[in-house]
């Protein structure tokens, strides 16, 4: 397969000048040498992105993921190394960047689209599509100055322009989380359509779920170093387990004290010693629908010298479905269950009186952390359990479903009614229900 983007040995250095030496006098006193510190945002990145793949770049704040995306987009120039790309590229780094508040929506569409590389004739052709995509509110106000738009309308129009530029390579930085839910769905639909059309997408995010949802490949960055590239599920596991906690990450090699103190000074103060899946019938290692299931989390408090018990502790679990989707997650704080000060060893049990799950293999994530979110220990999807629920219904949960049939059609006296017409689906606001 042809490469859409080839990144070879790319490093990026930022010079951080000391603020107090900006005046001319001080510069002269310093003999013309302004003291600075070098900060390497990226180190020796090699990454090949095949045409037609969707790649997620994962990393925590300051990992260099956005810097890498800006280098790919050509906004920043790498200090060393080379980036080659093939095909028209559109970067969604910030929606509506460069909108002129004093110009109308229409004028801004033309301006923004030409900045993104569209020809005037092309914009003429796609104008209605762009405005349509931005939604009804924007359509109504397209000839008003953009400064009168709400921030939601602003980003919707920005997204609509950018996505309609028709790029072969789409670079996205955290911007898919804009607008209301309906608009987000529309954006994701558009992204899926791009994927079907065989375009290349690079998404930068710190949200693993987004990567799982739309990416075919993923790469994890940590302190400017590419830690892992591969299947999204594997990379996400690495990201969650190692990078977020700062243990075993490549950054440790450079500056262990920094990582631990920043990310979790408490790592392994309490350890998860094991997780037991308590099936209802020990003789078969499956749980059937409506049967209870428990997980016993073994813990082990490491003495820290002071001999104090650990008081600030929250235990959490999350269940992931066969396709890797998050089904349910909770923790002791959300359940308003104070954990007593722990010391030594013991276990914390999460019991589910019944699991309304459908057939399949599920994974459990277990975490111990402080109320503030500092991790003690974290196992990402390491615990497997099987649910046996024969049936031909689909999804991950089984909902109680009943069917009744009434004669005569009269909708609308019990809730809002949706109608399908020429213009798509409309919602009848007059009867019952809450306003949309």
């Amino acid at each position: 397969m042809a490469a859409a983007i080839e990144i070879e040995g790319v490093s990026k250095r930022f010079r951080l000048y000391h603020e107090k030496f900006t005046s001319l006098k001080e510069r002269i006193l310093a003999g013309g040498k302004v003291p600075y510190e070098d900060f390497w945002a990226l180190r020796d990145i090699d990454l090949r992105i095949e045409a037609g793949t969707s790649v997620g770049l994962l990393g925590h704040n300051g990992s260099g993921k956005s810097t890498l995306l800006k280098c790919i987009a050509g906004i920043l120039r790498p200090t060393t190394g080379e980036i080659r790309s093939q095909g028209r590229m559109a970067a969604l780094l910030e929606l509506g960047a460069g909108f002129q508040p004093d110009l109308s929506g229409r004028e801004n569409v033309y301006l923004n689209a030409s900045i993104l590389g569209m020809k005037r004739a092309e914009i003429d052709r796609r104008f209605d599509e762009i405005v349509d995509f931005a939604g009804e509110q924007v359509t109504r106000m397209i000839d008003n100055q953009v400064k009168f738009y709400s921030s939601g309308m602003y980003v919707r129009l920005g997204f609509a322009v950018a996505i309609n530029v028709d790029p072969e390579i789409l670079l996205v930085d955290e911007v898919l989380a804009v607008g209301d839910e309906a608009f987000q769905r529309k954006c994701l639909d558009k992204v899926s359509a791009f994927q079907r059309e065989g375009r290349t997408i690079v998404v930068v995010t710190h949200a693993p779920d987004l990567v799982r949802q739309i990416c075919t490949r993923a790469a994890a960055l940590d302190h400017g170093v590419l830690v892992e590239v591969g299947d999204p599920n594997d990379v996400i596991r690495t990201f969650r387990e190692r990078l977020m906690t700062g243990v075993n990450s490549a950054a440790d090699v450079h500056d262990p004290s920094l990582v631990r103190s920043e990310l979790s000074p408490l790592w392994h103060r309490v350890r998860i010693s094991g997780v037991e899946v308590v099936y209802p019938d020990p003789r078969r290692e499956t749980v059937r629908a409506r049967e209870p299931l428990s997980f016993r989390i073994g813990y082990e408090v490491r003495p820290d010298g002071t001999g104090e018990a650990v008081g600030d502790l929250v235990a959490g679990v999350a269940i992931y479905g066969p396709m890797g989707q998050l089904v349910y997650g909770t923790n002791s704080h959300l359940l308003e269950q104070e954990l007593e000060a722990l010391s030594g060893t013991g276990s914390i049990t999460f019991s589910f009186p019944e699991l309304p799950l459908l057939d399949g293999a599920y994974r459990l994530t277990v975490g111990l952390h402080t109320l503030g979110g500092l991790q003690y220990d974290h196992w990402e999807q390491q615990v497997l359990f099987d649910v046996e629920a024969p049936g031909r219904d689909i999804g991950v949960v089984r909902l109680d479903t009943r069917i009744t049939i009434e004669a005569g059609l009269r909708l609308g006296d019990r809730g809002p009614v949706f109608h399908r017409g020429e213009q798509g689906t409309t919602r009848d606001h007059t009867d019952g229900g809450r306003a949309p």
Partner: protein
Amino acid sequence: MGYRELLVALVRKELKVRYKNSVLGFVWSLVNPAVTIGVFYVIFSVVFKNPIPKFVLYLMSGVLVWNMFQNGVSAAVSSIIANAPLVKKVWFPREILPLAAVGAAFVDFLLQSSVLVVAFVALRWRVGWGYLPLIPLALVVALVFTSALAIWLAAVNVRYRDMQHFLGIALMVWFWGTPIVYAFEQVAHRLHAHGLSWLPLLNPYTIICLCFERALYNRRTYRSGFDAAHHPIYSPILPGHGYLWYLGVLGIVAALSALMLVGAARVFRKLEGDFAEEL
């Protein structure tokens, strides 16, 4: 060249944004030079006696093309900084930004030229028809020269913001060093005595203005008095050379401007990689 449309779009934006929310709109771009011309006229024709006949027309011949230069580079020098959000978030050829500033100044020049045409027609002035082809040539050279400086200034100003402050002063000195409110020969004659008559020609914009003045104002001399025999004495205003001389000096400026443009583009290329970091 694929970005010609973007350049047009940005020039359009520049002009639209400038006069948005103003009642008179683009009329302001006419008011400014009109008042400038009016003030200079009063000072140099009424307050200080000026021997140049129809001084207003002489002034207009040179000042509009100077304004294009001055407004172009003044807007261009801060064009990258003014568009920081764009530069930091979207990739596009950044040299379009200073070029758009020059483009907007060019459009203003065209609008203002209509006033010039009206004035020349109203006063039934005889322009130098034969020399009119100098105007488009000089205009192109002026645009190349302005663009070269615009690109260079915009790039350097990102790191050294001193540029924009320095430019204001430099332009003031430059303006008075260019024969716009006085005649070229008034100065050149005096320098001639010291063997320095070539000195004013070192200013490229002098040559551009001279071409405009030669073609539009079209008077090379004025009657400065009478000799004992009551014969009129003529003093020079513009260089008395012919067509070839004008083409020659303009050609030199054209070559210089082209070289400057190449150099400026190279400097810009070198610096543009750091723009997003330094804004």
